[in-house]
């Protein structure tokens, strides 16, 4: 439900909202919610509702893209490690260990910071720090799937290795990856907003939720809505994806132990 509403908001919202999200002085500066500006205006007289609706586009777009890259990278590495075995497996898994030896957000912060503050660099940073979990899960699933009869049968009939990997092993990893991926979208939304809040992601005047929150923090006493509106937007989005992920897990893979990673 929440996710559906969000998707509609992200696609149609920007067309519907009355004001340009970056236009200043469309109303008085720092005005509490009124009929003309249902969520108030900010320190530059911009309409907060328009900004938050536009923000949905950034957050969802980035989260989907970043999660997509993580899934693809992780699945390739996991498939290769699990199927090839031997030293390839050993080397790839050590790489995963090294990657997982860092708290994700710290590493993402450093990568994004060194590349320079921008939304694109935050996406790169978040994509490269998050694939290892998928690789581990995919490898585990592949290892158990490899022992199944149908894989042995495929091999017996002389099917090429890549074909076995694609036709028989890939489908078995789809379910866990989808569940983790959905739960992961929420954490990516959080991380993107967090990095933008720190000042590494979207730069003002971009209507990104984390950036908006950072802009509003100097007006806590006078304008409570400036931090709370984007805050609620982020929380609802993450909640939506967490609910969806939990639902998917119950439906697809009830035995899957999901460890909710922080990033």
């Amino acid at each position, binding site marked *: 439900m929440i996710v559906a509403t969000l998707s509609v908001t992200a696609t149609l919202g920007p067309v519907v909202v009355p004001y340009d999200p970056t236009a200043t002085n469309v109303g008085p500066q720092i005005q509490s919610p009124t009929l003309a500006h249902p969520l108030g205006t900010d320190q530059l007289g911009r309409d907060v509702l328009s900004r938050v609706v536009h923000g949905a586009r950034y957050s969802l777009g980035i989260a989907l893209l970043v999660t997509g890259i993580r899934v693809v990278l992780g699945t390739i590495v996991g498939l290769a490690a699990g199927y090839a075995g031997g030293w390839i497996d050993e080397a790839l898994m050590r790489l995963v260990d090294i990657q997982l030896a860092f708290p994700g957000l710290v590493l993402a912060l450093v*990568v994004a910071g*060194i590349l*320079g503050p921008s939304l694109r660099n935050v996406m790169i940073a978040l994509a490269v720090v998050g694939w290892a979990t998928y690789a581990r899960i995919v490898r585990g699933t592949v290892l158990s799937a490899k022992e199944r009869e149908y894989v042995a049968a495929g091999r017996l009939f002389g099917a090429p290795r890549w074909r076995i990997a694609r036709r028989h092993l890939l489908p078995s990893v789809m379910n866990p990856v989808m569940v983790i991926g959905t739960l992961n979208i929420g954490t990516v939304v959080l991380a993107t907003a967090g990095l933008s*809040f720190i000042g*590494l992601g979207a730069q003002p005047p971009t209507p990104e939720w984390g950036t908006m929150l950072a802009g509003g923090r100097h007006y*806590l006493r006078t304008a*409570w809505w400036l*931090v709370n509106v984007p805050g609620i937007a982020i*929380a609802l989005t993450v909640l939506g994806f967490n609910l969806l992920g939990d639902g998917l897990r119950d439906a697809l893979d009830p035995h899957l132990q999901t460890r*909710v990673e922080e990033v």
Partner: protein
Amino acid sequence: MNLGNYLLYRLSTALTVLFGASALSFGLVFLTPGDPAETILDQREDTHPTPEAVEAFREAEGLNDPIPIQYVDWVVGISNGDLGESYYSSQSVTTLLVEHAPTTIELALASMVVALCIAVPAGIVSAVHRGDRIDIGSQLAALIGVSMPNFWLGYLLIIVFSLYLGLFPVSGSGSLSQLVLPAVTLGSGMAAIITRLVRTAMLDELESEYVTAARAKGLRERLVLYKHVLRNALIPVITIVGLQFGFVLNGALVVEVVFQRPGLGMLLVDSIFARNYPVVQGIVLLTAVIFVVTNLLVDLSYYRLDPRIRLGGTNS
């Protein structure tokens, strides 16, 4: 696997990982677009540096050596406790880390306490009253807790408890009253994760046969719960809590910015923006070391608590 072999195995993997992590901490800096020396000087002096100044800086910081040599120098330095010097002051990175660490450790410990105080009772109640209103309520609360960005929660608490009620100071560190809000901010997110964990672990244990047996022989329910079920249920919980300790640094980054606490997170953020790379390398390496060591300790405590590992289960 006996203890000796197991220790040896875990130590060797931990060392491999540490080696890789140190190379990564060191190498990250070379991702800088353009010439690091020029970028750093540009930022430090606020004017465009002369070619001579850049050359002098490179020479002084050893940036002219081949990268592998720089790495070896760095590692040799570390083994003597020397992580280099800050580009901006003559302070050594080690001193900076030692100065900032207590603030973060304080926050980490306090938020763990907050998290456990909320999560263990909530998880137990949830599991015992499975499916009741109270269980659904606590699960919903946990879900909301996981979904809330901690920087927003921090400001929410500041607005309510500092600005309106005037109970706690807005920012800073050092006193207990300044620790309360940051610890609650960071701890409640962790509590949400740990509550779910305690609940699942308790439910798993409650279904096992020894519980039925204990009940059948007339053991009081309270004794069954606390002496038997809780004890076994806490094994997986310890792992995650241990891992969370490393993750605390993730949260501390943001929470320290919100509450203006001069800890490691704040130092890292400042150093990143200032391109103060020796400090960045030092902090990144330190977090990796903390992470690897907590992982190792968690695995070893598992070994003590869960006999199955001792009997040769594989560790993946």
